[in-house]
């Protein structure tokens, strides 16, 4: 009996704590971002579903070296635009809604510097020339856990997606997906329960095969094919010769 009371009390405490936290800090139920390149910078379109706190505030993760270029409420009434503030020592974007403790949906577009700054890919030994890497990390600077996260990193146009380094491919579960989103090829990563301070990393490699190399290789293949067909032309002349028996060498060795 004592044990049951103990468990019930502990359970109730957890529920109360969670409810207090939700009332104070709000909730982020779903956070989705689509990252597209603008030269070497990135445009990030974010769609969030969350619950405002008891003051009607919705705290969202902030981005370094960024500016919010557009925002709108998809559901709920937005009272004030984003304000950079500090909660629990981390910078967040605070949106003021008219309705406290209610579910809202918001869309924002951010301009983030250097997202598509490329570096030479670290591939050891043999490789095609000109493979570059792009790294992007989303950090949950908000004070609450993001229940579900979905990030789409677009591959710059006119380049090939050479490979995905992070997240690493797993044989047991799907860690990422490569999809097409309109004109863009995207690497999509989905996560559940992204805690405050946790990050979701993307590291991809891109490659633009040079057309000069393509033409050189094609010329080489055509030349070699022609030369081979010419050098082996005697095979066609002896097509009707009957096959002769050949001794399998392995058996011969025995």
């Amino acid at each position, binding site marked *: 009996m004592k044990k049951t009371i103990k468990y019930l009390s502990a359970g109730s405490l957890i529920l109360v704590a969670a409810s207090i936290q939700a009332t104070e800090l709000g909730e982020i139920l779903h956070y989705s971002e689509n990252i597209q390149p603008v030269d070497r910078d990135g445009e990030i379109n974010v769609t969030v579903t969350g619950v405002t706190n008891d003051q009607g505030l919705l705290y969202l993760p902030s981005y370094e070296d960024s500016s919010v270029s557009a925002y709108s409420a998809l559901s709920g009434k937005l009272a004030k635009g984003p304000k950079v503030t500090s909660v629990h020592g981390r910078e967040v974007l605070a949106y003021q809604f008219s309705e406290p403790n209610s579910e809202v949906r918001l869309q924002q577009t951010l301009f983030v510097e250097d997202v598509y700054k490329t570096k030479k890919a670290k*591939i*050891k*030994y*043999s*490789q*095609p020339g000109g*493979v570059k890497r792009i790294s992007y990390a989303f950090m949950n600077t908000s004070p609450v856990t993001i229940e579900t996260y979905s990030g789409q990193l677009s591959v710059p146009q006119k380049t*090939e*997606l*050479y*490979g*995905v380094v992070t997240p690493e*491919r797993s*044989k*047991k579960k799907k860690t990422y997906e*490569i*999809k*097409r989103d309109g004109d863009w*090829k995207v690497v999509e990563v989905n996560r559940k329960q992204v805690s405050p301070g946790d990050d979701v990393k993307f590291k991809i490699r891109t*490659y633009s*095969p040079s057309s000069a190399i*393509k033409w050189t*290789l*094609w010329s080489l*293949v055509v030349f*070699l*094919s022609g030369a*081979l*067909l010419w050098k*082996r032309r005697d*095979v*066609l002349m*002896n*097509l*009707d*010769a009957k*096959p*002769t*028996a*050949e*001794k*399998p*060498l*392995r*058996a*011969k*060795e*025995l």
Partner: protein
Amino acid sequence: MIAIARNLSSKSKTEKIMYYLGLPLAMVVLMLFYSIPTPDGITFEGKMSLGIFFFALILWISESLPNYATSMLAIALLSVLGGWAEKEALGTLGYGVIWLMVSAFIITSGMEKSGLAKRIALAIITRFGKTWQSILMSLMAANFTIAFIIPSTTARAAMLLPIVLLIAKAYNVESGNKNLGKLLAIQGLQANNISTSAIVTATAPQILAIGLLKEYTGSEVSWGEWFIASAPIAILTLVASFFIGFMLFRPKVDGKAGGDEINKIQRQYDDLGKVSLDEKKAAGIFLLTITLWATDKWHLDIFGFQFSLVMVAIIAASMFFMPYIGILTWKEAKIPWNLMIFAAGAYACGVSLSDTGVATWALSGLFSSLGVQHMSFSMLYGVVIAISSFSHFVFTSKTVRTIILIPTLIGLAETAGVSPLMLALPAAFTIADTITLPPHSKANLVYYSTGYFSVNDQLIYGILTLMAKWCILFGASFTWFAYLGITA
């Protein structure tokens, strides 16, 4: 050196044309892959690994280049063109299967030198081999029987290899009886893989399959239930394989001609005399090897150490070189390094497809493009069985194929509104159907090392046998499986 590329003079007209066109065609296909934009769903690495796989496949089938040269080229191309990291591609030469093959050839050399392999082979022929047909049937039966005790297709192939080689020698395969060599080797590998499908414990991926079935659907399939459902399919497929082989590669000797040869073999057997000390030593090492392979579940309890399949083979091979108990010197060990290079390249092509996600992408793309969700059960069942049976073309690893195939089929069955077991269990019976190309299974490579058949021979024979198995499985869906309640 083992012949894994035949002389031009021994090729038929079609094979000569394939030889003539193979290399130019392979190069053009590879360049097409390099030039086209990467399809959605995969990376450039994946696209190139697929291109290099087709490049190598064309060359292996056409024999336009020696197979080991194709493998070396494939490894180089994978690294340079970005199909797979160099470290990974080169690492395939260190795979367990390569060590297993090296060890198997040392064991085979020891068995040959001691004369034990010859004694066993001659004993089999004189007891059961009244004709070459009965020899083939006894080898099939041997493959089926040892599948109960040795839970590895590769170990069973390595065990039967010396016997197959000696039987081939006794039947003058080296003096032109090529078709019998083909039958002995290809039927050997088919019997090995098909027998595996009858016994759930005969290969680990089948155990994984029933584990996945339980995890995803809660349905438990016992050893006995698997055997009752699958063994008749396996036996009928073995019968079909026997007759298909007979049609494709009818040996020049007729059935009765075997009688004279058997008499000669009987005399050879009688001349062997008493078992020599070397034979006893070889038998001791061989028995120890089989015992260790058969008891791997209890190694920790018995010895306090676990010995993997490969380590057992390496220990056994090293014992043949030991003072007092060994009988071999390094020079006497006939290790076909060209085969090892071929196997490493073949593995690099296969594993890179899996590692870059191309295999999964191809399988899911195939299922969705066929629109299987809207088919009748019979149609759906037929398509699923065909895809699961032939999907080993893109998955070198049975384990990876199982991990991808079984959950996909369970999901598909749920979408189609049928019980998951109705599709996933019959599909699980095709996990061991890896009989079409040498790199599709380690056992295939062991038999390919005999040099008795070409890639093309195996491909045609394998496809026909798998088509026969598909018909048997399809027929079973409304007869045997319906009676057992799997598809009812």
